[in-house]
């Protein structure tokens, strides 16, 4: 029902959802939103003129009008008018281009598209080692962040509609996009280029934070993983080691150093699991471990459905504790 109401009233920002180009939360998206509204208004006018004229000529007044007028209509409507209108639109559109791709003036990130998740590395300004934190993109508000994009196997496309346009990610090539978010909040981004069976489930959370909060978060993210705090979580850590999870996943500060799958060092403090597939409750972790193949078709990770219910819960507790 809400959705139907949204369909009727799309410009109520609250309705538009967290992945909407119509609810801009960044400079780039805002400029494109304005562009769209103006183009839409113009398009409606042109549509009415064109079809109104057809209706008039065929239904209201189907008699023969002077050939002179018809020729004038053809020259003005066919060449003169569109040249001016389209030319103006083109000039406006071109003038927006450099802004959309301005070089960054703050944070720099490396994002690599994987099938089907995002490898994200934050490049600290002081030239220290990059901070790895996958499947979530956090950006400080008010700065223009630059994202260097690449991919490991197939082409993906990184898109956060609320913040700006998208950019493709190619294997063996680096593309660059820049974003200047203005409104702190949590938005949803998604892969926009078809990349295989789980393309539909390759999403992520884009979190815009106040700069100070962002710095604190980044510092925390750079630290090694917490040791498990409860007995259940310790049991979970043992299962994690026993099942060989560390062959693919890294948990910094432990023996797990795999790099095929996402880094799990701070998985417990993320806002989604499996690249935007599930929430981050204990139950979500357990479900993910047991049914990953159903949740994400053709994913590399095997489903650990041979684990018993308590084992899964222990593993979930361990992972949830990695904050």
């Amino acid at each position, binding site marked *: 029902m809400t959705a139907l109401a949204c369909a009727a009233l799309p410009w109520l920002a609250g309705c538009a959802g967290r992945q909407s180009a119509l609810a801009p939360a960044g400079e780039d998206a805002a400029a494109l939103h304005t562009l769209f509204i103006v183009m839409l208004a113009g398009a409606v006018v042109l549509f009415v003129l064109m079809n109104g004229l057809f209706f008039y000529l065929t239904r209201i007044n189907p008699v023969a009008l002077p050939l002179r007028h018809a020729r004038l209509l053809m020259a003005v409507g066919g060449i003169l008018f569109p040249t001016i209108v389209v*030319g103006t639109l083109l000039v406006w559109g071109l003038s927006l281009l450099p802004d959309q791709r301005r070089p960054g003036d703050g944070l720099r990130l490396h994002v690599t598209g994987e099938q089907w998740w995002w490898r994200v590395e934050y490049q600290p300004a002081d030239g220290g080692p990059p901070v790895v934190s996958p499947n979530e993109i956090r950006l400080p508000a008010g700065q223009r962040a630059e994202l260097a994009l690449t991919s490991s196997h197939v082409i993906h496309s990184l898109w956060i509609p609320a913040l700006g346009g998208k950019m493709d990610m190619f294997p063996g090539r680096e593309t660059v996009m820049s974003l200047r978010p203005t409104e702190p909040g949590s938005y949803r981004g998604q892969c926009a280029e078809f990349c295989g069976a789980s393309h539909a489930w390759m999403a992520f959370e884009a979190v815009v934070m106040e700069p100070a909060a962002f710095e604190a978060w980044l510092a925390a993210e750079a630290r090694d993983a917490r040791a498990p705090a409860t007995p259940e979580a310790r049991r979970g850590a043992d299962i994690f080691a026993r099942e060989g999870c560390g062959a693919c996943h890294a948990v910094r500060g432990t023996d797990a150093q795999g790099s095929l799958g996402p880094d799990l060092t701070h998985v417990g403090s993320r806002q989604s699991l499996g690249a935007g597939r599930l929430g981050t409750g204990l139950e979500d972790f357990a479900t993910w471990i047991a049914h990953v193949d159903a949740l994400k078709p053709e994913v590399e990770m095997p489903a650990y459905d041979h684990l018993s219910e308590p084992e899964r819960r222990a593993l979930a507790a361990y992972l949830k504790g990695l904050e």
Partner: protein
Amino acid sequence: MSEEHAPRPEEDRREFAEETESLWRVTFAPALWALHFLACYGLVSLACARGLFPIGATRAGLVGLTLLVLAGIAWLGWRGFRQWDVHSTGRRANPGGHAEDRHQFLGHAAFLLAIISFIGVIFVSLPLIMLEGCR
């Protein structure tokens, strides 16, 4: 300009010989647009991706090329307009079955194609003027 006549051997060759110039005029304007477009895209790619020449000089050179191409298209359009010959005949549409109708029609087509190509070249040259660098 030949009028109706009995069929001749090698008719195609003769007809093409008769209209060579106007056929060139019809194809030349859009072909100039295409060449200009390819030159813009190709040279900018070579400048940006391969680094063969500096982008600033490339842009300046291409703006120069644009002016030349525009002049060429304008000339073709003028010749087409003359061939259409609407002022002396008063015939805009050339729906008749005579050789001069065909001749004037080809002139009209060349004239209109030149207009479209002219607008096309101006549009394509806008980014050259408005956008800088290789970003």
